[in-house]
């Protein structure tokens, strides 16, 4: 387990991905600061801001952290998670080292479990980096303070646990991405195939979720409740959608992780 963690931490792509994740909030903060004064024209809660959070980004460092999470939870976080989990097994297969790991006296499911645990751990780190980087960059740029939400004001003491809960929800909302990527990872020797395949799937699912003609079908897409964390900003916290979002992940995670283990335990390692 530690060996696998060190192996992943020694990889440049791990650090590039984590650093990139950390950098995005900083870039947004710099862009807002640089644009300040000149760029107020497109305000008014246009179509690009469904949550109504972006115009509050500059209220405080915590606000900015929240906005960072909102901005990145839709696509960037799933991509990073897909990278960490989609490449876990397929890269070993690509290097030819998978067969040596499997010829060790370790059950395949345990090996797979370690790979999954480390991939998930790195994904969690990526999710955690977003608000951390956001709060640091935001506090430097906009100062410390409570969180202004579309529903009111939260004191910092109350906002921080909620931010943590939001991040936990965002992380769990990408569980299906991790499961799909991991399953694809066990089926191919090409890490790019597993990662890109997952990203394509994420995009397709998000597009489907945006097509209102699909009606109630959309409710069963794993991204349908992806902004339910907004309920954590309201007072009192609204949890119905949140609960649905949490449960919505379960079938996808069970099915795709089940497929991954089922397939990997039986597969002939030819690579």
């Amino acid at each position, binding site marked *: 387990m530690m060996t696998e963690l060190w192996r992943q931490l020694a990889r440049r792509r791990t650090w590039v991905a984590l650093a990139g994740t950390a950098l995005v909030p900083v870039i947004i903060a710099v862009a807002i600061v640089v644009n300040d004064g000149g760029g107020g024209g497109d305000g008014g809660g246009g179509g690009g801001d469904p949550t109504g959070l972006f115009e509050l980004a500059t209220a405080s460092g915590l606000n900015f952290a929240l906005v960072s999470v909102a901005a990145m939870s839709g696509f960037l976080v799933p991509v990073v998670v897909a990278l960490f989990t989609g490449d876990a097994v397929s890269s070993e297969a690509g290097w030819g080292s998978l067969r040596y790991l499997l010829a060790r006296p370790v059950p395949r499911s345990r090996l797979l479990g370690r790979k999954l645990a480390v991939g998930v751990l790195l994904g969690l780190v990526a999710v955690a980096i977003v608000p951390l980087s956001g709060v640091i960059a935001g506090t430097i740029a906009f100062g410390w303070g409570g969180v202004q939400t579309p529903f009111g004001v939260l004191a910092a003491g109350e906002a921080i646990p909620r931010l943590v809960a939001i991040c936990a929800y965002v992380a769990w909302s990408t569980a299906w991405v991790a499961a799909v990527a991991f399953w694809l990872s066990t089926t191919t020797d090409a890490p790019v*195939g597993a990662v890109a395949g997952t990203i394509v799937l994420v995009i397709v699912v998000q597009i*489907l979720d945006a097509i209102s003609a699909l009606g109630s079908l959309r409710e069963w897409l794993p991204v349908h409740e992806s902004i339910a964390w907004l309920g954590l900003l309201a007072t009192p916290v609204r949890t119905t959608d949140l609960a649905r979002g949490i449960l919505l992940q379960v079938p996808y995670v069970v099915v795709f992780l089940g497929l991954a283990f089922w397939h990997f335990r039986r597969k002939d390692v030819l690579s």
Partner: protein
Amino acid sequence: MDFRSGRMVAVVAAAVVAVIVLVVVVAGRDGPDASRTDQRIMVADGIELATTLWVPDGVDEDTPAPAVLLAHGFGGSKASVVDDAAALAARGYVVLAWSLRGFGASDGVVGLQAPDAEVADVSVLVDWLADRPDVMRDGPDDPRVGMTGASYGGGGTLLAGAADDRIDALVAVSAWNSLPASLAPNSADAAAPGVLKLQWASTLFAAGSTPGGLAALAPAPSAAPTASEAATPSPGPADPEGAPASPCGRFDPALCQAYAASAEQGRLTDKAAALLGRADLPDRLGDVTAPTLLVHARGDTLFPLSESVANATGLATAGTTVHLAWLPGGHAIGTTEGNDDIVRARTGTWFDRWLREDESVAVGPAFTSVDRAVGDDRSGDDLVPSDATTIWALSGDGTLAGPDAATAGSRSWLNPPGGVPAALTSLPGLGGFADLLPPTDLPGQHVAFDGPALDEDLDVVGAPTLEVRVTSSTDGVVLFAKVLDVAPDGSATLPQQAVAPVRLDGMPTTTTITLPTIDHRFAVGHRLRLVLAATDQAYATPREPAQVTVATGPGSSLTVPTAPIAAADRVPLQRALAIVAGLVLAVAAGILVARRRRRRDDDSAPDPAAPAVAIRGLRKTYASGFVAVDGVDLTVEPGQVFGLLGPNGAGKTSTLRIVLGLSMPTAGTVHLLGHEVAPGHPVLRHVGALVEGPGFAPYRTGMENLVDFWRAGGGSMATAHLDRALDVAALGEAIDRPVGTYSHGMRQRLGIAQALLGDPPLLVLDEPTDGLDPGQIRGMRDLLASLATEGRTVLVSSHLLAEVEQVCSHAAVLVDGRVVASGPVAEIGGEARTVEFRTDDPDAARAVLVDVVGADRVQRQGPGLLVDVGDDPVRVLVAALVTAGVGVRAVTPRRRLEDAFLRLVDGGRR
């Protein structure tokens, strides 16, 4: 294989995407197409209305469909409702849209839904639909028909529903309850003269008298359900209007005069009130029998939210089925994003339920208030579900206090001469931007009473009431009452831009003011602020100066209807978390149990008595049907160096993969050191392997790769015998460079070193000399020999015969997945000994040799002669040649194994 499976994944992914796209395209289609026909229908003498009829594809006299009458908003025309008509037609309804009298290309004058004009027209249109064979019928001259419309059309829908009971379902959007009370409301006494809503009245009058209507006054506050449609003045020959011929435009002249008089007087004249009262609903709602859906925007400042409540309660009192839906936004409901979709969906399901009489259609609870905050809807089975009240009293210190804590006294304000400047609270037609407008009250012209900061959220649903005693320096007084939401930072917002105008006569007086109906959450930390103001720009206000005073104290009370804030229902969340936690626990328990069982079963000690490798009846058929291994039996005893020979594709590597547990046999068993092998079996701890070339993480150094590999197997570095492995690798400094920089041979040596980690008693090496130079091959040979002398067992596959012959004690030859020979290398080579003679004179030599051994044992091969020497010593043959004078250049023994191999391969294939 990897290439093929990769391509397979790509193909499957592409197929999935294609199917999804197809589903989306099919599902996204707008239902059946509809044919449109424009025609003029005569509704009264000399009055024709311009109409458009939509008939969905597949609807004809054999399969008739219900019809829907679709009325437009004030200032619009049938062109304003094209999108709504298309949406209804797509649901399978025959839709008849028309331009109301005085609008679009229709004849007549605008009568503001006069019963004998616009309302009577609807009955004529119902008659007209009754004659159409493609419209379903309830009886002779009674078609199955619903009606919908917004604002002007919404009020018209309710009026028509009251006038003509052949209409079977109604959806009224942004409808009034009373036109006079909406245009000149008095919140102290609805029956008494009110305060003229000057801005709205002007806007509407302009809309009715200008070609293009309200649409010309963007952003359109028009009642048309879609702003975009309303903004398209109906062009073409159907709309031949020019500029208005008179200041009254197409208004009924009587209405026009009444308006002019009202605007002049700043109050609705009796005549105007009477004319507007023709379209009053309160007395007519009892005649409505059709199930009715009322849709209203919370921020409607023309027909305030209270109008929808009055309509809903009026219908409910009469026993009519009624549902009430509140949406965000202002009077022009479509200018708030998302509302159109909601209205169309609700309208469609309402008609599906009541026109198609489909009881399976869910129309939802009787009351819904959509999107009060992001994603926060309110719903209930009661029409306006407030069930508790909070009471404050106006206190002399300008606060709202508890009824007992209020201090008696008074507060005053001035009405400015001429009524200007005036407070600004709302602008007609601002639509979705209205919320951005901060309420402005002028100093001295208002009094404010601030409540305490709320210690919990307060949901106000319904109309607060204010009981207060008012005195004035004049006989009559106009004032504007409103409730503001004050945030902790002091900024104030006016929920729904709602203001209650009050006209009081006979000073002093004690009165009860009904404040605007709102659905608003005052968040924790916020305050309620009651404001009584002298002026409001939206209204006509008296011009004479006055000083107005309200009494404070326990008797001056503000009663606020509230809804209980549903304590967030945490049960689903807890349940969801419990389910997820349960799953995690179950998986963790499964892992623990599996681990414990494994530990119990972990008896991997090599059995010294058993063969090192025992393969029995091994078969391997790949998914493609290719049989790689076809019944192999092999036994490798401890201490043997066993060579697995065979041409490419003979099944060597497939066999070794199964031996190592990398792939599953189709049939047969493999025992290693006495244990039947399975993937990841503990006995693999005692096996070192190199299969199909080395495989290392390219970004890690050689050393790190060895360490990772060993640790992945769960061994401690103390048992790794790393030094021996490093000696074999002989990589020197390069061991600390990333493997990505290694040459093929360096990687091969690192692979062999990896196989030697842990000093395993059994080594499985697949083509170990691949990529090595001759010197290294020799080193390899020496290594294998020394391993053998240490008592290790080595199973080595190769297609290089010299290697096997020189190193191996035993060997097996595989051809097409079968063992064609097996045993000690000497035995496979066979008893026959062949020697090649190179001489100066092959012909003479042949004659000599044939004499000695016989013709059948001498064979010409190129420049040399192959002789099966049998038991004859070679020196005898050499002596015979020398004696015969034939010069002998070279005598070399022929490779026995090579011969045997080629013979076996040929034989095996036959």
